[in-house]
């Protein structure tokens, strides 16, 4: 079976595998600038606000109003730590539901005031523990995504480190999505993907390459709009120049989308999301006996006319089969 593919994306070579894994390591580098390292270098003023007004303040997500070249904006980002203590405090940047609900609260405030939202993505993923489940991790992510699809203000998303699955996307729906050169974005961690599909955590580099996590590949897939170059070996060697490059990229993106009125903005955001994915339309011979039975079929069956087959039940067309556990797809 041949399926449509995207040009330039062919099974990765061993070198590409090593390269993808190198980028993952850079994205996770302990000295990589975090959201709170970048904010003072990009914005002229920033007041951090705390709490989701419902349960507690989640230190894994930070945010508040800031000034960008004299213009008020709302900044929200995942926050990892720089050492063991701060990482424990920040839960390694993995948010609980209350983190996403804090983000939602700040976005609603931005919407109310008509100021743009800028988000920084840097998380291995939403926290998967029992407490997070109890408080509705899935609902928190889902409602964050939904809120962002309807915000009537411009949203610029920047993937600065790890873009880890639903926990990243929860604050990652934007009109323009930028990524630092060594940032990565994936539907599941390479370790998780390797454990499920390769049944071996050692296959993480292969999984990283297969998932096309790098910023350059994400650009080809149309998931992000542009890649911001990092200094030297990577952002960790020079926080200042990384922030400067980020600032001009954010300003340029804002300039492009701020021209749109709210209706056009929502329309183009919707079209952007609606267009993501690869599929093809094929004509399937209509099963006129079941799908939309014709008048001939309906009357014929009622009168038991010869030559009109009995209408099969849908459960005869798509019956249950004995299935073993099948977890080869989902994340």
């Amino acid at each position, binding site marked *: 079976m041949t399926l449509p593919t995207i040009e330039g994306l062919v099974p990765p070579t061993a070198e590409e595998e090593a390269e993808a894994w190198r980028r993952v390591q850079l994205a996770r580098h302990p000295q990589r600038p975090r959201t709170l390292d970048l904010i003072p270098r990009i914005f002229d003023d920033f007041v951090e606000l705390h709490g989701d007004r419902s349960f507690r303040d989640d230190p894994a997500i930070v945010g508040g109003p800031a000034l960008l070249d004299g213009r008020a904006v709302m900044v929200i980002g995942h926050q990892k730590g720089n050492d063991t203590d701060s990482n424990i405090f920040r839960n390694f940047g993995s948010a609980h539901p209350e983190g996403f609900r804090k983000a939602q609260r700040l976005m609603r405030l931005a919407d109310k005031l008509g100021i743009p939202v800028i988000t920084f993505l840097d998380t291995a993923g939403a926290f998967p523990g029992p407490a997070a489940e109890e408080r509705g*991790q899935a609902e928190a992510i889902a409602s964050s995504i939904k809120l962002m699809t309807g915000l009537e203000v411009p949203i610029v998303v920047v993937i600065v480190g790890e873009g880890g699955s639903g926990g990243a996307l929860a604050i990652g729906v934007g009109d323009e999505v930028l990524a630092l050169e060594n940032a990565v974005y994936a*539907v599941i961690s390479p370790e998780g993907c390797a454990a499920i599909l390769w049944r071996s955590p050692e296959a993480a580099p292969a999984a990283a390459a297969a998932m096309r996590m790098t910023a350059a590949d994400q650009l080809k897939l149309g998931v992000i709009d542009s890649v911001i170059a990092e200094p030297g070996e990577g952002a960790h060697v020079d926080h200042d120049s990384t922030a400067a490059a980020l600032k001009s990229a954010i300003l340029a993106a804002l300039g492009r989308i701020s021209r749109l009125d709210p209706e056009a903005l929502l329309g183009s955001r919707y079209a952007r999301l609606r267009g993501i994915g690869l599929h093809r339309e094929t004509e399937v011979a209509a099963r006129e006996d079941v799908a939309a039975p014709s008048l001939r079929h309906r009357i014929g069956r009622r009168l038991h006319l010869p030559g009109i087959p009995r209408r099969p039940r849908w459960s005869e067309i798509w019956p249950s089969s004995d*299935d073993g556990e099948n977890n080869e797809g989902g994340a």
Partner: protein
Amino acid sequence: MPIKFPFSRRRDVSAETWTKCPSCESQIFNKQLERNLRVCPTCGHHFRMSVGERIDLLLDDDSFVERDAGIEPGDPLGFHDQKSYPDRLEASRVKTGLREAAVWGTGRIDDQRIAIAIFDFRFMGGSMGSVVGEKLARCFEAALAERIPAVVISASGGARMQEGTLSLLQLAKTTAPLTRLDSAGVPFISVLTDPTTGGVLASFASLGDVILAEPRALIGFAGARVASGTVGEELPDGFQTAEFLLEHGFVDRIVPRAELRGVLSRLLRLLPVARLEAGQAGESRGWGPIGVLSGIAERLGGAVSDTVGIGVESGTNGDPATSREESER
């Protein structure tokens, strides 16, 4: 798996006629299991259902019309683990007779018309890639354009890894139309069945105006093994079951399978699509009786746009045109 010939008289008696209940371990005669809607007569364990069985269970006879049956996935990443993605797709197709992990169409429940999407867990774990996301989005857009309620029966392990971030972004693609259903006053009922986890739960499935679940269904964000493995914590009793979610306020009702059709029917009656105010235009204008009338009125008045609502069949590019024209008016 042996190939089954429906007309063959020879049957492998031991394997084909009895099923062991994984919950109470009693042996159930397969015919009886089917008659009992694939619910264990001894302990009430709900076995998984195929898309076809769901359609027969929930919808009026002869009412289901499948839409977009021919959408097929691509292989955007050239993904290859121990098997290639196209091979895995082919294996699922052979196993299930389906082309993808979800089917959508229109149908009726007690004569009430709905747009409905149904997952089949046997197709690559019910995982959501580009095609499933596209089908869900079109299902919601049809509900919007035709002003009929949307119903989704979920059974999914989450986003499909083999399509990478394209699958992740389906969370947003399927959620965006729900914002429009809100402003248009069109209800959406989400039914969670065993299992509903990962990216499907973290998007539209958690956003129903009403959320129903089947008894004891596994429902959670992260797999239970991940949850306990990551934090090394004891998991609470009944963790990630439908009952757990009901207790914590994330599900409205747990509905045994035999009652599901009835409860859906009552809810559809109790939660009608909002009536349009006279002259209300924009996305919420649709094909319902009032929508058509106001459409005609507008056409007579000369304020005509060629794009009415969201093109159901127009695919990905139907929409910018709509919003552009609206902003020009």
